[in-house]
């Protein structure tokens, strides 16, 4: 990318006005994604960049009994520095595995959720938690469930011409909280993938389960999740086999690579086994 102009707004309203004036501008949060791109190629056109790093109001973090709200420009290091229990532990463990401490000093939660080529580490876990993202444009604002940012082909469909300002993360215990990155830790590789499984039980029955696998696209089947709800815990072998079979069909419909599908199914099976073993999040 070639940058010919940089706008550094000090407030959100300045940023919104700047974006209105430059609807094609690229928004820059911590810069760790944009600036780790290779050198600009001859075909790259000049772009205007709006850097949000100086907007203090986008770094605010607050918490109620029901949710925690994190400003989009909160760095990953700041997120980790919050006292234990402030944000869900599964999210914390995901953040702790992103890059190095020095990269986390720059990278922001908003930036991590806004990458358009493929989903980055925080997206799957927050989508499974039904986190909401607030987008602002002009004087208007809207809250969007992160799951709505997964396009029909499973690829990211991030809003354009709007600024991600806050992320609202619902609180609430999960009896199973699994979030794993497959492939190498600390780096974003085309070969890495992310697996998340969250589950709640109620009176020895599965009340809620959410499974998301993000490779070159995100896979989540609410149909299969619904079919599992209400099942007794421990899940019976035939329930597990039938769910794994359903996921196998789902993968083949989605047309993902066989090796990727195989990994997903192994992890689904493991998640069920762990659920049966009664491991709590």
């Amino acid at each position, binding site marked *: *990318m*070639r*940058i*010919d*102009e*940089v706008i*550094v707004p000090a407030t959100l309203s300045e940023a919104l006005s700047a974006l209105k004036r430059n609807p094609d501008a690229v928004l*820059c949060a911590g*810069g*760790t994604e*944009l*600036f*780790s791109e*290779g050198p*600009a190629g001859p075909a790259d056109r000049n772009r205007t*960049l709006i*850097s949000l*790093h100086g907007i203090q109001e986008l770094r605010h973090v607050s918490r109620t009994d029901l949710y925690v709200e994190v400003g989009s420009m909160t760095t990953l*290091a700041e997120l980790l520095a919050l006292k234990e229990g402030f944000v869900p532990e599964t999210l914390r463990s995901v953040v702790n595995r992103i*890059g*190095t*401490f*020095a*990269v986390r*000093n*720059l990278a922001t939660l908003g930036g991590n959720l806004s990458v358009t080529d493929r989903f980055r580490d925080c997206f799957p876990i927050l989508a499974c938690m039904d986190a909401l993202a607030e987008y602002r444009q002009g004087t208007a604002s809207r809250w969007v469930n992160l799951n709505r940012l997964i396009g029909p082909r499973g690829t990211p469909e991030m809003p354009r011409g709007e600024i991600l300002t806050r992320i609202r993360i619902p609180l609430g215990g999960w009896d199973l909280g699994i979030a794993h990155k497959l492939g190498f830790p*600390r*780096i974003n590789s085309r070969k890495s993938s992310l697996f998340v499984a969250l589950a709640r039980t109620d009176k020895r029955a599965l009340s809620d389960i959410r499974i998301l696998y993000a490779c070159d696209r995100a896979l989540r089947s609410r149909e299969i999740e619904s079919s599992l709800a209400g099942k007794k815990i421990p899940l019976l072998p035939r329930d597990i086999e039938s769910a794994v079979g359903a996921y196998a069909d789902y993968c083949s419909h989605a047309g993902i690579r066989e090796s990727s599908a195989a990994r997903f199914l192994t992890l689904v099976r493991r998640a069920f086994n762990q659920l049966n073993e009664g491991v709590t999040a």
Partner: protein
Amino acid sequence: MKLDFILNGEDVSCQAEAGDRLAYILRERFSLLGAKEDCRSGHCGLCMVSLNGRAVPSCLVPAFRVRGAEVVTIEGFELTDDYADLRDGFRKAGAEPCEFCRGAVFLSAAALLDERPRPEATEILEHLSAVFCRCHDPSALVRGVQTAAELRARRMYFRANR
């Protein structure tokens, strides 16, 4: 664009292009060569600097971001007591990072000691993993940081009781 910022304790000013990175500015505009500028992806950490008190890979920091900020490079850090603790601690412990990674290792270690004055071995290795170099001997680095932590604690104690 014009950049005004504090570099190693001094007010400085320079011209930069919109897409320049801090590592480039430090090397080309100020001849501060302690930060290497090789990987441009934050992987190797050899371009580590302190930006507003936090260690960051300067290859990932857009130059425009340093306007009004405070930047300390290894050349500036070398003038501090914290550096002397690390230098002496590493020497005492027989830990010798090579000439390429020494600055980045020291800045990362200093960032850790600011947060955790008595770090555990795992914390040290976790922190220093921000710098990649084939010369690293993990146990020597741990000894080096822990010895530096002791020297630093002693210095702080004497300063407080002076």
